[in-house]
């Protein structure tokens, strides 16, 4: 998923796909982080109490805040690295869709409880 060009049209060179690919992959990673932090908070009592940022909401506040901060940080980093270049966007979107699909599965309690 580096700087390999997928499109050689002059328009694509003028308007590289890197910024879009960064946003797409970051969204996949952000979604996956929601599921990962939720499972961690559910399985480990120490993480559960660490995630209790706002007592009335409980660990949900920390899980979602950490996931959102992680998503925005990854997005900023990828945007900084990719925004002026064309990347192999097919692989990037495939990875993002896999992460999104896993997030939908892993947030489902009967599957999350398998861990």
């Amino acid at each position, binding site marked *: 998923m580096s700087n390999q060009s997928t499109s050689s049209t002059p328009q*694509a060179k003028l*308007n590289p796909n890197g910024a879009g690919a960064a946003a797409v992959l970051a969204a996949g990673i952000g*979604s996956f982080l929601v599921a990962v932090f939720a499972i961690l908070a559910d399985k480990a009592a120490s993480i559960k109490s660490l995630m209790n940022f706002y007592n009335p909401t409980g660990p949900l*506040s920390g899980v*979602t805040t950490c996931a959102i901060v992680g998503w925005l940080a990854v997005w900023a980093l990828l945007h900084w690295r990719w925004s002026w270049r064309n990347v192999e*966007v*097919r692989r990037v*979107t495939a990875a993002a869709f896999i992460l999104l699909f896993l*997030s939908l599965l892993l947030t489902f309690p009967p599957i999350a409880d398998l861990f």
Partner: protein
Amino acid sequence: MEITVRGLWTMIHGMGFGALYLMACSGALVELYRRYRSPLGSETKEEDERFLRIYLTAMAVLAWLTVLTGAYIIYPWYRAVPPPGTASLAAFPQRLLMSSPSTAAWHSIGMEWKEYVAWLVPISITMAAAVFSQYRRSLRIHPELRAAVLGFVCASLLAAGIAGFFGVMLNKNAPVAGGPTIHIVQGEQK
């Protein structure tokens, strides 16, 4: 006719923001699909691009309002712990659901899925709005990015549908109610 403050917030969260998002989502999917299935040469007007950009941004705002009101206003009322010796659990929806085997899964599966899956919605639609705003008409020359935007909007519809379905069912089985009462209309006694 009257409503409690908690009931009103639940209505704003579910029917105001959540249901509006679901309706807007189907509109966005149709518009994105219609726009990009037409031949490459066909031009879209600047005002159409602007409209869709504002539409997707408004959807992102709606999605954030839905999850934030859900997590920080309604969820604390839902998960409140009753003081020892409380006879009626009506004001403590989570405990009310968990008190019976016939309703416990609405919490252990329904709420526990809803509270996390709902957050995939603002992440997905914010990405879609950002990519569309950045590329606008030139998204036509990036088919993979177009597919990603469409796919994430579809996923956001699915996640919002799951959250919405469980929200409705939870509220049917154990409504979030209580707090001060707002009188809307004084009815006539018969």
